[in-house]
């Protein structure tokens, strides 16, 4: 999905290709989801992120189709700005706020897979450690203590920074999912860890192979 200001859309498409599926370009101004099996909201600065990250993209025409589809079970992965958009659209709880040090952070981080049961993480083992890049200025996850408790109790924390969040994220949360597990959002960039030539590892590929094999297994696609 490309919004004005999306930047990592080509990278997400490449990751889908590496995982053996066919990327389909969706455009923010079209309501049509073109019959895709899953949607990735990529990183970037949609609408410049001038108001709040993801706040304006949330009102794009395509979101009018995506929100009900996601509620009905369509797998959706939001990476970085995509995660912010999912939170702004209330498909995921909480919000992403300024990094504690108030600076943009680009560095490789270690993540622990907490929930390997979502549509996007089924290819991992719980407890598995991944090295992927983080690059964001407003990546600190924030939510009320009740919401955080609830997320932890119901296994909806998907990935955690290890040993500690570099950006002030609440309870070191790097990514979460919806109650049904079909919608996942995370701040680090798995699509930039699919090939050791251009990333720190190929650890991120699992997000994309997870979803592809879910469909392959169900015979639902390709």
């Amino acid at each position, binding site marked *: 999905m490309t919004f*004005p*200001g999306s*930047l*990592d859309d*080509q*990278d997400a498409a*490449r990751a889908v290709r590496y995982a053996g599926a066919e990327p389909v370009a969706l455009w923010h*101004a079209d309501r049509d989801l073109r019959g895709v099996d899953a949607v990735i909201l990529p*990183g*970037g*600065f949609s*609408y*410049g*992120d*001038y108001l709040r990250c993801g706040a304006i993209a949330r009102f794009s025409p395509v979101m009018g189709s995506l929100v009900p589809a996601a509620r009905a079970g369509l797998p959706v992965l939001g990476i970085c700005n995509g995660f912010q958009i999912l939170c702004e659209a209330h498909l995921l709880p909480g919000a992403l706020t300024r990094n504690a*040090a108030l*600076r*943009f*952070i*680009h*560095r490789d981080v270690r993540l622990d897979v907490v929930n390997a049961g979502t549509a996007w993480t089924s290819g991992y083992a719980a407890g598995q450690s991944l090295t992927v*890049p983080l*690059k964001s*200025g407003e990546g600190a996850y924030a939510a009320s203590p009740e919401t955080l408790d609830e997320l932890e109790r119901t296994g909806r924390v998907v990935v955690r920074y290890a040993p500690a969040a570099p950006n002030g994220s609440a309870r070191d949360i790097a990514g979460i999912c919806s109650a049904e597990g079909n919608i996942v959002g995370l701040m680090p*960039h798995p*699509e*930039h860890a699919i090939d050791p*030539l*251009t*990333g720190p590892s190929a650890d991120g590929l699992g997000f994309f192979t997870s979803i592809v094999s879910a469909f392959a297994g169900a015979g639902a696609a390709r």
Partner: protein
Amino acid sequence: MDGLSEARKGIAPRGALEARNTDTVEFAAATPEAEQPFKELGLTEDEYAKIRQILGRRPTAAELALYSVMWSEHCSYKSSKVHLRNLAPRGAQTDKLLAGIGANAGVVDIGQGYAVTFKIESHNHPSFVEPHQGAATGVGGIVRDILAMGARPVAVMDALRFGPADAHDTARVLPGVVSGISFYGNCLGLPNIGGELSFDPCYAGNPLVNALCVGVMRHADLKAAVASGLGNKVVLFGSRTGPDGVGGASVLASSTFAGDAEDGSVGSGGAAAKRPSVQVGDPFMEKLLIECCLELFAGDLVEGIQDLGAAGVACATTELAAGGGAQVGMRVDLDLVPLRDPSLTPAEILMSESQERMMAIVTPGKAGEFAAVCAKWDVEATVIGEVTGDGVLTMTWRGGTVVSIPPETAADGPVYSRPLARPAAQDELAADGPAMPRPGDGAPLRQALLALLGSADLADKAWVTQQYDAIVRGNTVLAMPEDGGLLRVDEDTHLGIALATDGNGRYCRLDPYLGTQLALAEAYRNVAMTGARPMAVTNCLNFGSPEDPGVMWQLAEAVRGLADGCATLGIPVTGGNVSLYNQTGQMAIHPTPVIGVLGVHDDVRRRVSAGFGANEATIIVLGETRDELGGSAWAHVAHGHLGGIPPAVDLAAEQRLAGLIAVAAAAGLLASAHDLSDGGLAIALAESCLRGGNGCSIDLDDVSPQAFTALFSESAGRAVVTVRPEQAAEFAALAHSHGVPAAAIGTVTGDSLQVNGQFDIPLDELAAVWQGTLPALFG
């Protein structure tokens, strides 16, 4: 009083003209004696007289504004042009050039149908006044230059120089500059793949902020900044025009900051006196402009295109019209320019430096399609005029003709052969070599190494570079802290390009000719370290006032050094930028040419990193180590000393070294490669250890009989590489056949930097010293 009203006062027409009638061509002809504020606009008596002579009358207020910005040092290169001519590529240097100096940016053929364009540009003065926005708009400007060539911008780099790291004002300027580059470049989706960061008191009132952009296109995509085709439409698109930076180019970048900005604090003295209205960057709009332009190019919807940078509409219209040839003119209706502030006068519209704007020439038949593409990207596009066949640039406003000039007279500008003289003090400086006591062995050497490693110039730059997205677009193969940035251009063929920028103000202060060649050599070497073949050069010449004959001598020497160096290396200078008046009062900065080198990598999978990765690998020093410490980091850090002569330059040796690395990398012989530069072998070893997370054990005897010289000399043309033991013989033979001296000095092992018979420093200690400096200074 704010800067805007300052700037406007200079332009005068504002209130005055509203009261009278518009200053039209007719009115100007009828009022030859009317006083005009040409001095306030930075024009000399002679220049003003020349304009009157060209026009056969006094200029209108709008024409005066137009000539003043076009003839400013910044836009016309009037002081540097006579020297820059020496850079024109000759002979074999032109083999791979698709467009050269004079275009917005030079274009190089890199094979497989691809062409690359790259350029470096300064935004020094605006970044001192308003560091965040100044640096941000510097990135924005150079990206539009690259876009105007028809290329997709694919990466940026930034070369930065500040006053002393611990100076109060540096704490204002540096974080602002870095956040501006981070904000703009990241939001644009362009990876930042390298740059420079250094500190010296000479930059306290004049930080240097040089930004480089590189773009990639297919050969057929090359665009020209030329107006052609009678009746074709002139389209202005992108942001609206506001009072941003009115007078910025001419007033700010063409004279020194008045007063003593000794502490450099804004709000007192210096900068405040000439503060123009600040330009604010809108990287989101620029991202839309990029995608919009690329779609316009793909649809073959533009005949000619020009970015709007300094001198905005004035510059774009005159250059497009002048580029079209003698018969080509242009008629522009300034009432049609979409304004953010409706009270702007014609002069202000022409001078506005509002960001994120482009101008295109479009055939009438394609205007509809052009508009549709712009609408898709939410980019406002307005036809403001058309191409004519009368050779005249005509502009109207509210029914009157306010500009009527031969465009080439504004575009070409004056050319000065300013007096130049080698300062007498150069000889004293050269005679004052670093003769102070040197650490002998063991503990003092260890101490000297740690002091250098923790100095602001040589410390870990992560505090800066972590604020930059280096990987967006997914083609970054190497980026900082590697010697050069390396980008994949083609995912199927693995073709890539490498880039590095270098400059050393201290060397250039001692000898601008040699210093410039050393900068060229270092950038060339850094590109070579990735395994790429260096192919082309861009440069940003940062100097003091051209009205100082000593500064002009520095400039002439630097250009001569660059021209000779590139001729020897057989690679062309494809473009660049000159920034003069970098001085505070009588104090000029060190002459600081920043040289960017571009290389081609045939297979990015064979890239070489600087880190010691392979345990038990053999460590080899390539090149010759002499006792060369004039202008060195050691003299600077340990003694605050600058004197003597810089290291010798041997460009043929650089070529041999680069050739060896390229061949060895392609053959898979190199486990790592890192060039030797500031701080010599000592710093290179420490960096390679830290980068790879492995220690080493070495002997210095085969580098130099003196341990100190072996560690800290800055002889050029050297590198430290590692080779797996089973390949060491093959590599040694290869080095021999390339004529590159190679000395095996030890192995990659353990977790300390161990120099046998001298000292042993655990990696943890190295890391703490290296990483601690910038965070301690900047939070």
